[in-house]
């Protein structure tokens, strides 16, 4: 036995095995633009209006947001009832970075190297972030047959031509330098013996430009950045969240009110520039989906930025990664990296059919999985869940024995932990909530237009990926825009003179909520997901 699958699952596995040789002899056809649009409109969760609410207050009033995000935007600030003395300054810095993931850490390193007095505050530990969990890789057009312009086309088209061109340009143009920077910090990218980067395809790439560090790409990047932050002596205030931005009497951002997560005490951080690098929102469980995200991914930065007057962009565009683990239940929602498909596995339905090209973009492939399951070609698994197969034994046949342990050891380990040998049997997957395509709106330099001296970097920013992000462009985005924010903030703070501090926007936003008759009974930002079971 290579897996604890039940009889009906094993029956389907036999069909997958029976068609494997034939499937491997031909590559599934790519869909046309019209076919993709049709699939998305029928099956992608973003097209299900029932899962969205209208935003009733603030800069995006009248637009839609996922119900759970709208609820946080419609909820009350902690500082409506809890009082904080803004004259008692606990920290006074040039650059305040909110968030200690890939973007926040890159930002802090560059700001420090440019001479700024920079500090990181982070809700959990430094490195506790989606960056740490990114498995598959990071894109950069550094091969002879590739160019930043080709990368631009892939990214812009994959995002349905909705991305901000100036942001895409920065992303792709600064990509090779981002890889070089990481490599010089000591990040171990997969290389051939002559130093050539091993690069593969991701969904929607037209050139093989996915750089990786096995399937621990994000972890390798994050632990190196964390080490560098510590080596540089940059202060990191852990287990401390920002709960509101502070402004001055000129309307500039002037710091943040912090909350010690362990003692419940508030503190004041004054800063000439502030960078929101708080990451994603998977733990909001939009549409009831499980998530591949970190425990801390609760859209905090979006809420506190929005409350201070910074508009959102594409807040209604969510990425469901096509291949989340669906069986066994202990790993429900866990990411099965796209790299599994990059190195050869096909998506196969219950009847053993490779019903789609495995490297269509994520939104298209997620929609495809949902279609197969809804139309009766999914595989039933214990616990009332459904999924389709990811035919992993193909990887060993294509790349030779040992390829799985060498190229995707984290996946191998995750499944072996539950007695599933993915070298021998396919694994069952279903889309998992993976990424917020949108976020706070930024200009080409990473600043918000609404609030002077406020920058946003990483997953909290919107507009870089349009309405669908390609694999390997998020690790890239956190490095490129994190570094950019650090450099820009370090240049900017020298021109800033702060007036008197206030959080008047908190009261005025609260009045807007009351005027709109909104009372959710919740406070926001959420900070931690409510997983504790209290009913008895």
């Amino acid at each position, binding site marked *: 036995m290579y897996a604890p699958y039940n009889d009906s699952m094993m029956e389907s596995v036999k069909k997958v095995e029976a068609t494997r040789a034939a499937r491997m002899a031909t590559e599934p056809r790519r869909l046309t633009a019209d076919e993709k649009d049709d699939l998305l409109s029928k099956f992608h969760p973003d097209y299900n209006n029932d899962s969205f609410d209208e935003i009733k207050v603030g800069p995006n009033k009248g637009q839609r947001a996922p119900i759970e995000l709208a609820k946080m935007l419609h909820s009350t600030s902690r500082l409506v009832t809890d009082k904080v003395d803004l004259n008692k300054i606990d920290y006074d810095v040039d650059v305040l970075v909110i968030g200690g993931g890939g973007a926040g850490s890159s930002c802090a390193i560059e700001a420090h190297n440019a001479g700024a007095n920079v500090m990181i505050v982070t809700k959990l530990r430094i490195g506790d972030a989606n960056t740490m969990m990114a498995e598959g890789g990071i894109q950069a057009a550094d091969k002879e047959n590739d160019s930043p312009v080709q990368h*631009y086309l*892939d990214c812009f088209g994959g995002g349905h031509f909705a991305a901000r061109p100036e942001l895409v340009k920065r992303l792709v143009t600064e990509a090779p330098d981002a890889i070089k920077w990481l490599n010089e910090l000591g990040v*171990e990218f997969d*290389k051939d013996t002559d130093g050539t980067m091993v690069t593969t395809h991701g969904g929607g790439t037209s050139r093989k430009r996915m750089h990786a560090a096995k399937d*621990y790409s994000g972890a390798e990047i994050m632990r190196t950045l964390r080490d560098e932050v510590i080596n540089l002596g940059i202060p990191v205030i852990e287990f401390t969240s920002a709960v509101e931005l502070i402004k001055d009497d000129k309307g500039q951002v002037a710091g943040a009110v912090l909350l010690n997560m362990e003692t419940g005490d508030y503190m004041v951080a004054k800063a000439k520039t502030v960078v929101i690098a708080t990451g994603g929102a998977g733990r909001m469980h939009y549409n009831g989906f499980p998530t591949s995200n*970190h425990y801390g991914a609760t859209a905090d930065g979006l809420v506190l930025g929005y409350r201070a007057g910074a508009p959102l962009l594409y807040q209604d565009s969510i990425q469901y990664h096509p291949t989340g683990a669906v069986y066994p239940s202990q790993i429900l929602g866990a*990411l099965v990296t796209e790299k599994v498909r990059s190195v050869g596995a096909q998506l196969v339905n219950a009847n053993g059919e490779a019903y789609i090209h495995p490297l269509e973009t994520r939104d298209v492939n997620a929609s495809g999985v949902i279609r197969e399951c809804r139309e009766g070609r999914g595989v039933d698994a214990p616990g009332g869940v459904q999924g389709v197969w990811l035919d992993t034994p193909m990887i060993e046949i294509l790349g030779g024995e040992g390829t799985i342990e060498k190229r995707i050891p984290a996946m191998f380990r995750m499944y072996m932990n539950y007695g599933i040998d993915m070298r021998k049997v396919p694994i069952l997957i279903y889309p998992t909530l993976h990424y917020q395509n949108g976020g706070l709106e930024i200009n080409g330099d990473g600043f918000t237009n609404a609030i002077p001296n406020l920058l946003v970097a990483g997953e909290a920013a919107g507009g870089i990926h349009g309405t669908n992000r390609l694999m390997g462009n998020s690790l890239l985005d956190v490095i490129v825009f994190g570094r950019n924010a650090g450099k820009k903030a370090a240049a900017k703070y020298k021109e800033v003179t702060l007036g008197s501090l206030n959080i008047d926007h908190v009261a005025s936003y609260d009045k807007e909520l009351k005027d709109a008759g909104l009372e959710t009974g919740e406070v926001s930002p959420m900070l*931690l997901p409510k997983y*504790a079971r209290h009913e008895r």
Partner: protein
Amino acid sequence: MEEMVNVYFYGKKYTVPAALTIQTAMEYAGYTLKRGVGCRHGFCGACATIYRIKGKNELKTGLACTTQVQEGMYITQIPYFPTDKRTYDINDLKANQQVMMELYPEIYSCIGCNACTKACPQSLKTMQYIAYAQRGDLKKCAEESFDCIMCGTCSVRCPAGISHPMVGLLARRLNGKYIEPEAKHLTKRVEEINNGDFDAAMAEMMAKPIDEVKDLYNNREIEK
């Protein structure tokens, strides 16, 4: 009826569904986790845990997020452990044996008990990568330690006080920066970009009407 098991968080008994992990079982019991929780999928090392099955002598280690509960499990978490990271400027170091002697001399106090290896939730050959570090084989140390998630359970068990994850990290950074051969195509591409070689083509692409860009995208050639 769902199968249930009895487990003990910090010595206090809770009855929880048998299918849960230690982490989700704690939440089932009513804990709101702040410490000892992170990525929840085995990548971040936040949830190092020690447990003993009632009546058994062996003390086990694991990650709360990837370890399923069992009947009679006595569980404590190690939300923080004082490993000792030495600070350095990576640009000033050389990839040689002396670097380990200077920064992590305690690795030479290893008594060969192998408790670190037995404790590793990633099943790494921890003692072996420390041995590579001792003899200055940084490349091998980097390879053997690559899958380390820095949870620190090895250090908790080490009688010599070695901070194994920090030793592996140093070896990997040195290997990545100094030992692995340079990616010449990358250096070249960065120079080309800095030289403005793609500026005209990029400007041209960005100036195209959207329908033309769509056409280019939908008909672009995909490398085999």
